[in-house]
């Protein structure tokens, strides 16, 4: 599913009429704490955008602001050209799937799904047809008359989705909808939900702290940190070309080695690190403290040609076996540094304590200003 999604971007991108959801300079404070700091976000029609970040980064607050369950202190929220900033939640036509599903415990499955239709005054006969269609969409036809309290987590999840989409919302918000499911079920539901929403063409904002989930499901990911968007881009942009050290570390595994820039030319800087001289693309003044980031899977065993590769030598500290791949942690001299190497095939000789040479392409490394430096 995700492969398909990434294989299709031109077509998918074309139908995403930009600026369908426009969040402009939204600020939200709770007491003295600024939860969202002049945040802007633009989402195209039928696009699926994830808000990815750790708890407390403001992603759920942003979701609640869009839904109208909270009011911003500053800024505006528009959907389809209509300013919704001061519109009550029940007049926005924005669907929400909640973390705990928030199904009405006193209503049956069918009554839960019909709830929004009834509130909007849809005629009875039409209600029944739409409820049946929605149940079919999530493959829960047999459960129409069950009590929602008698359903499993995955089933409740499906009903919550059916209940939200049956009213044909102009925007669907999903607040960590999979967090209560076990891993196997979660992976199935991710793909299924993505499929359903794509077919319906519903613009969706998906809140998650799970980077894998965001990578699998999203057209674009907004990596959030402390009330701001650190990086907004496609999953492959965010993963392969992170704009900040924070994004690199939050999304996926990473190696990071700190050092000081000793020189550079032609867009390549030379950095003095505990592992020796490392080169990477970037523009930094000589003497700047920087961090070099590399994905573990971009690092291979053995030496490489000097012009294209960095080659370093280190001591293996730990060998972590995952079946299809093995992760090596190297010893590092400096606190905060991390050299993790992911190998598909493990040389027989590798064990903790063994010295080993590894290499990676200059193009695979990213350089960021060291945290706590002048820019912070």
């Amino acid at each position: 599913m995700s492969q398909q999604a990434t294989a299709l971007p031109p077509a998918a991108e074309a139908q995403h009429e930009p600026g369908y959801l426009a969040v402009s300079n939204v600020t939200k404070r709770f007491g003295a704490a600024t939860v969202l700091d002049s945040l802007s976000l633009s989402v195209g029609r039928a696009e699926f955008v994830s808000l990815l970040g750790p708890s407390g980064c403001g992603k759920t607050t942003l979701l609640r602001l869009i839904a109208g369950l909270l009011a911003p202190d500053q800024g505006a929220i528009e959907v389809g050209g209509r300013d919704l900033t001061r519109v009550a939640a029940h007049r926005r036509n924005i669907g929400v799937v909640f973390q705990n599903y928030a199904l009405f415990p006193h209503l049956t499955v069918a009554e839960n799904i019909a709830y929004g239709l009834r509130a909007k005054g849809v005629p009875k006969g039409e209600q029944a047809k739409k409820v049946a269609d929605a149940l079919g969409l999530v493959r829960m036809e047999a459960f129409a008359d069950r009590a929602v309290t008698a359903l499993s987590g995955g089933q409740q999840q499906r009903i919550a989705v059916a209940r939200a989409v049956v009213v044909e919302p102009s925007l669907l918000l999903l607040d960590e909808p999979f967090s209560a499911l076990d891993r196997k079920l979660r992976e199935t539901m991710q793909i299924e939900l993505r499929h359903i929403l794509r077919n319906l063409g519903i613009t969706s904002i998906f809140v998650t702290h799970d980077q894998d989930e965001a990578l699998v499901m999203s057209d674009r990911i907004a990596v959030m940190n402390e009330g701001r968007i650190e990086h907004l881009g496609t999953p492959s942009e965010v993963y392969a070309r992170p704009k900040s050290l924070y994004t690199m570390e939050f999304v996926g595994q990473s190696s990071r080695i700190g050092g000081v820039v000793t020189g550079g030319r032609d867009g390549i800087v030379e950095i003095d690190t505990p592992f020796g001289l490392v080169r990477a693309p970037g523009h930094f003044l000589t003497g700047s403290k920087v961090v070099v980031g590399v994905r573990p899977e971009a690092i291979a065993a053995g030496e490489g040609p000097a012009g294209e590769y960095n080659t370093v030598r280190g001591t293996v500290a730990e060998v972590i076996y995952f079946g299809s791949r093995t992760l090596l942690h190297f010893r590092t001299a400096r606190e905060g540094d991390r050299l993790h190497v992911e190998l598909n095939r493990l040389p027989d000789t590798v064990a903790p304590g063994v010295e080993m040479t590894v290499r990676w392409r200059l193009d695979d490394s990213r350089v960021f200003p060291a945290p706590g430096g002048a820019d912070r």
Partner: protein
Amino acid sequence: MTLARDDLAVMPAAAPARWTFDAKALIAVPGLVFMALAFAVPVLMLVGDSFVDRDGFSLAGYRKVLGDPYYIGIIGNSLQLACITTAVCLAVGYPAAWALARIRGAWQVILFALIFLPLTVSIVVKTFGLTIMMRRDGIINFLLVNLGFIERPMRLVFTEFSLYFGMVNVFLPFMILPLYSVMRMLDPRLLDASASLGAGPVHTFLRVTLPLTMPGIIAGGTLVFSISVAAYVTPGLLVGDRFMTMSQVMAKAYLNIRDFQLGASMAVIMLVISAALILASSYLVRTPGGERR
């Protein structure tokens, strides 16, 4: 995890009844013995008294109570008193309980204190306090006259108004507590979900809040009704003989005219009313959740 908690909140868990011996039940024995001696035996004796006069078995007591318009009127008075008290307590207590369940921090402590501290004051003290306030030279008349609403002080004490005022004053906490305990467990996201589905505040209240807080309404209503139908002190002090209630008839029968059968018959009728109400309410609470489980 949250879901399990919500379930408990809304529907009392219906554990399958199994009649096997459980040693934990033995812990209740002292309490049971006390209740048998202090409650069950006297009540049974009372029931026995209602069927007996000086010559043996007799239904004269019931014939008197149920056949005489005077006594029927008094039963009506008690039912009216209980109904109005319950209704006013519900109307006033529901929003208060909601606030109590939703507010956090220092305000919650303050609200709690305001609502439950009065419970520590004796009913007699509270009721006498009210009569002082409602006297012709009391603060209410003083204010009404000086603000120009009325020309001369009006009678407040010994009116039905003062009675209902006093009853609500005494019994309001008994309505708020059960409502609060149900509302506290109501997941606020259900209200968010309702709004996100296009339901306005009124629709949300009628279709979500009201049905889910119904167990609290029934519990609070039953509690307030069954204690206010039996109220003795408050009606006695605030209205006296102008508004006779079942409890006052019982007291008079035992203490003044010494017609034990009359008093016992009235007591049994009151017992039947309360028991019927409690049975009905436990049936009402069980049905909606019970069927859907």
